[in-house]
């Protein structure tokens, strides 16, 4: 659905310049993020790819970052907008630390801040083209939430962005349960990421899994998943088709 941006057309030159500053479409994009709550906190997984349309331009992008002491932020969508958001959050956390009052922003607060930022940019018709996943633990309570580029937000026991919402969420709805151990949680996330690797053409086989608990944040080194391509049905796929090549 096209949506014309309602602005006063009095000053055509000034408006044309302002218009050229607005986001029209994303350029370098990251694909899905999948995250789950588990026994000790939150687990989040993403691949390390940055696509430029259909080209796989960047293969070493960290799309999950630690925010303050209590949160993890994962982003899909435009990478430059994600970097902008990290700058906003940097300032937020810095100012929070400067109060030096023993308090620190928890994941719920950071999620709320991000929701407001995304919604306000949407109101100005200049969105940050990201879907964000915010997970964390504070005072023993785990938190996991998501914000979209137009400011829709919610929290749940498991979230996924982009293709993950279609392919990973059903797996999580079936197999997630409360108090997953770390090993089970990682296995579950890897199951989701493997499906995405098979079926999402913008996914690459280079992942990071991040963990956040009361103790702190750990982001794994990049690693690959094993895949299987030897299914009989895919051997000699044109065997039954007459006249094909």
């Amino acid at each position: 659905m096209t949506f014309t941006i309602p602005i006063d057309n009095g000053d055509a030159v000034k408006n044309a310049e302002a218009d050229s500053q607005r986001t029209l479409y994303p350029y370098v994009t990251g694909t899905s993020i999948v995250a789950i709550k588990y026994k000790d906190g939150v687990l989040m997984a993403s691949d390390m790819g940055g696509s430029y349309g259909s080209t796989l331009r960047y293969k070493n992008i960290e799309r999950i970052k630690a925010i303050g002491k209590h949160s993890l932020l994962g982003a899909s969508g435009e990478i430059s907008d994600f970097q902008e958001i990290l700058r906003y959050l940097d300032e937020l956390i810095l100012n929070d630390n400067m109060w030096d009052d023993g308090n620190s922003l928890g994941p719920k607060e950071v999620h709320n801040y991000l929701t407001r930022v995304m919604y306000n940019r949407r109101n100005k018709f200049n969105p940050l083209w990201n879907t964000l996943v915010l997970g964390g633990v504070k005072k023993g309570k785990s938190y996991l939430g998501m914000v979209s580029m137009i400011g829709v937000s919610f929290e749940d026991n498991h979230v996924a962005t982009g293709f993950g919402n279609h392919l990973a969420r059903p797996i999580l709805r079936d197999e997630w349960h409360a108090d997953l151990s770390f090993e089970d949680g990682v296995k579950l996330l890897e199951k989701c990421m493997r499906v995405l690797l098979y079926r999402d053409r913008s996914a690459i086989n280079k992942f990071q899994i991040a963990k956040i608990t009361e103790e702190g944040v750990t982001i794994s080194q990049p690693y690959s998943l094993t895949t299987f391509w030897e299914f009989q049905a895919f051997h000699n796929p044109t065997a039954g088709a007459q006249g094909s090549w």
Partner: protein
Amino acid sequence: MTKQHANWSPYDNNGGTCVAIAGSDYCVIAADTRMSTGYSILSRDYSKIHKLADKAVLSSSGFQADVKALQKVLKSRHLIYQHQHNKQMSCPAMAQLLSNTLYFKRFFPYYAFNVLGGLDAEGKGCVFTYDAVGSYEKVGYSAQGSGSTLIMPFLDNQLKSPSPLLLPAQDSITPLSEAEAVDLVKTVFASATERDIYTGDKLEIMILKADGIKTELIDLRKD
């Protein structure tokens, strides 16, 4: 060069249905807990009911980001009111505030479909129903959201109030007991869930009475 058009929409419909019924000394406000986008379900556990004041509870469906922003505005205005008047806002007062807040964004609306329920000054139930830009009406019952077209005709059949055009003005409050009204709400949601893809998962019912608020959570079909 022709003017560039945005290829994204600032609006989305996150679905869901809200219902409220006013009784002689109670008000029932109910909504499902499903939040969707397109053909996907984002959450099966998202509450659409928000208490604004002791005697005023808002239930909204539509574009969830706008609903949240609207709630925040009303909550902060209510806080200021409490500071200035040393009392909570009454339901009719909140009704007017909601209407004004919605119309304030007449040219970039809150895509929110609201039903406000509560108790008036005499302790009788009152329900106000709204459109997205603030036109509102005090009624005895209302349904808004994706399942409203399925529910409203049935409520009309079961609860039909006297016409608001009659003189002298007659009460729109239902003579049903609280238990009967809650039962009716469960029935309409079960039916709406069958045919509306955006309604389902769980039903949250809030019952407002002079002595407090009770909440019930009931399962609905998840498909």
